[in-house]
């Protein structure tokens, strides 16, 4: 398996190249995109199984010694994110092909989508800070294209905000990378914890904050979140589904790795306050909106707060809860946006004032919405309950009563914002001028939405094994990660 992990980036990029070459044939592009994305998904599952049973996998590129080569490492956390990310991207790709919206028919869509697959996969596998930055750039470049492909005025306006803020984020991140290298002499994720521990406290704090700002902007934490509810709703539904499910989580993943592995002793009060503010502002924003996509977008911010709270609480139990929460949140959020896509496909809008009575027209769609909606709000027995329970239990154990109180209140408010969508779009009577009957949409769209919703139910069914996997992941992160790379490549 010498090439092993490199293929997760090289494969999709090869697919990107082929899609460009066959740009004239949309069918060929779709076939290439589906087969590459599918193959990468299957391979990622194989990696996850291997990592869990045998141990971490490392791939060094170019035949250079480890210290200077590009290194990809798959440990439990990376492999888990790789699997869930690729499964989502594959499902959304099938959905988008079914929908066949204007942007999906553009010759740039399939190549950009595969580049996104390459960037996301690479970010989860990057074995050093600089390559994390590079993979962030790949996925950002692809996301700029996907977000503005339709070229409507609205997309260009919010796309500009999105691009400018992410360029600023990249600038902060690359500054952080340079400073980390200047102070420690390495960028390897395996060596950094020891090197950073040897730094004076002030320097380490500065680096920690710099990286937190960079990744926090990507993850949309308070007060760096305002770009998200502005830009995501402008993108076409499948695109915002994959962005909502995955891209912020790449930021959370980076925060999780850096804060727990590199700065284990830092004071977490600040992070806890940020988490609480993120939860509250996100959910209040969601309640104030009157558009499905905008409500869902603000809820992302709120959910990120839960993950940050878990990271801030620290310790194996909290990190395990965060990992489980991330795993549950990705399909839940994706499926909500996919449901919105079906609504928009038929109704041409996601504004609540112009919707109504969808539940009567399509009971299936209503169920497809309700399951992830309850799950996000944390109603038992759905998956969100287990994740939130984990975070809250740790909060109680550590005596941080106030964050538990905030988390519980925010849960109820999340339910309120979901009820707003339910009453506005699914309940009641349809506006008079609407056609009756089942919502018109491509069968692939509902099939894939079902698939993702079923995935969230599967997370509940297999909550035990998944949670124990999350605990093993957290234990991996708690011990010095030097152990993860000395177990060499097979």
């Amino acid at each position, binding site marked *: 398996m*010498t*090439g092993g992990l*490199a*293929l997760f980036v*090289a494969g999709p*990029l*090869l697919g*990107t*190249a*082929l*899609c*460009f*070459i*066959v*740009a*004239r044939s949309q069918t060929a592009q779709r076939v290439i995109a589906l087969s590459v994305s599918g193959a990468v998904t299957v391979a990622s599952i194989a990696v996850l199984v291997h990592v869990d049973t045998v141990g971490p996998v490392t*791939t*060094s*590129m*170019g*035949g250079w010694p480890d210290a200077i080569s*590009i290194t990809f490492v798959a440990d439990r956390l990376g492999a888990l994110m790789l699997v869930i990310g690729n499964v989502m991207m594959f499902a959304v790709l099938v959905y988008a092909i079914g929908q066949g919206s204007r942007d999906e028919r553009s*010759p*740039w869509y399939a*190549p950009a989508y595969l580049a996104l697959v390459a960037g996301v996969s690479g970010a989860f596998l990057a074995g050093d800070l600089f390559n994390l930055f590079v993979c962030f750039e790949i996925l950002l470049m692809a996301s700029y294209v996907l977000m503005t492909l339709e070229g409507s005025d609205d997309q260009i306006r919010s796309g500009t905000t999105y691009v400018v803020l992410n360029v600023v984020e990249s600038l902060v991140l690359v500054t952080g990378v340079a400073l980390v290298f200047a102070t420690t002499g390495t960028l390897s994720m395996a060596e950094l914890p020891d090197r950073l521990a040897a730094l004076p406290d002030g320097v380490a704090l500065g680096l920690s904050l710099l990286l937190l700002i960079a990744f926090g902007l990507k993850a949309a934490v308070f007060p760096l979140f305002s770009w998200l509810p502005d830009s995501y709703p402008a993108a076409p539904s499948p695109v915002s589904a994959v962005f909502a499910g995955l891209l912020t989580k790449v930021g959370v993943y980076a925060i999780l790795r850096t804060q727990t592995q590199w700065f284990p002793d830092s004071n977490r009060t600040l992070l806890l306050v940020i988490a609480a503010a993120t939860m509250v502002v996100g959910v209040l924003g969601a309640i104030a909106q009157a558009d499905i996509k905008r409500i869902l977008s603000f809820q992302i911010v709120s959910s990120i707060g839960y993950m940050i709270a878990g990271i801030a609480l620290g310790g194996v139990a909290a990190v395990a809860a965060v990992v489980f929460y991330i795993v549950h949140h990705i399909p839940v959020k994706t499926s909500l946006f996919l449901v919105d896509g079906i609504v928009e496909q038929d109704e041409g809008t996601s504004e609540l004032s112009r919707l109504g009575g969808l539940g009567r027209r399509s009971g299936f769609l209503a169920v497809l919405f309700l399951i992830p909606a309850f799950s996000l709000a944390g109603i038992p027995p759905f998956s969100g309950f287990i994740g939130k329970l984990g975070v809250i239990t740790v909060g109680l154990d550590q005596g941080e009563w106030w964050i538990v109180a905030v988390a519980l209140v925010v849960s109820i408010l999340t339910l309120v914002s979901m009820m707003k969508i339910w009453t506005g779009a699914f309940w009641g009577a349809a506006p008079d001028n609407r056609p009756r009957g089942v919502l018109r949409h491509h069968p692939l769209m509902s099939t894939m939405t079902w698939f993702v919703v079923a995935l969230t139910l599967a997370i509940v069914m297999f909550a035990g094994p998944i949670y124990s996997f999350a605990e093993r992941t957290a234990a991996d992160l708690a011990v010095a990660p030097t152990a993860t790379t000395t177990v060499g490549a097979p």
Partner: protein
Amino acid sequence: MSPRSATPRSTILSLTVSGLTPVLVLVAVFVTFRGHNAPGGGFAGGLIVGIVLVLRYLTDGTEAVRRLPVDPIVVIGAGLLLAVATGAVPLLFGSSFLESAIWKVNLPLIGEVKIVSSALFDLGVFTLVAGVVAAILVALAEADNEARRGETGDPEDGGPLDADPLDDDDRAEADR
């Protein structure tokens, strides 16, 4: 640049660019191949070719990109394919991704020449970057054409660029 400000185009600029084109392309190739151990490389080389295209666009207008023999999107794909394939081929020989093979060849008159497979990677980047610049120019040209159609005020009659008499004169001048 608004379409009107580009006219009338300068014969001097046009002739200068025609003369510079082969020189710039040579410089681009030189920069690309010296990039192995010195400043330069495929990205810089590709950008220099991109500059040639931009200069052509300045002198000849949208006609410059209509003359392109291949669709830029295919050029981008070919460049990326070459780069990634160069990285992946070593895997077939049991080496690691992106590992470079090195051959030393003795050529008559020139002496010993070191050939590395990673030069192909640079060539891929070169092609890719040049293709991206061309794609940007095509997009600009399309926007330009649309703007002109808008200016004539009659979208049905405005039609393709050829319908604009001003532009025809310019092109005739540039051809001389």
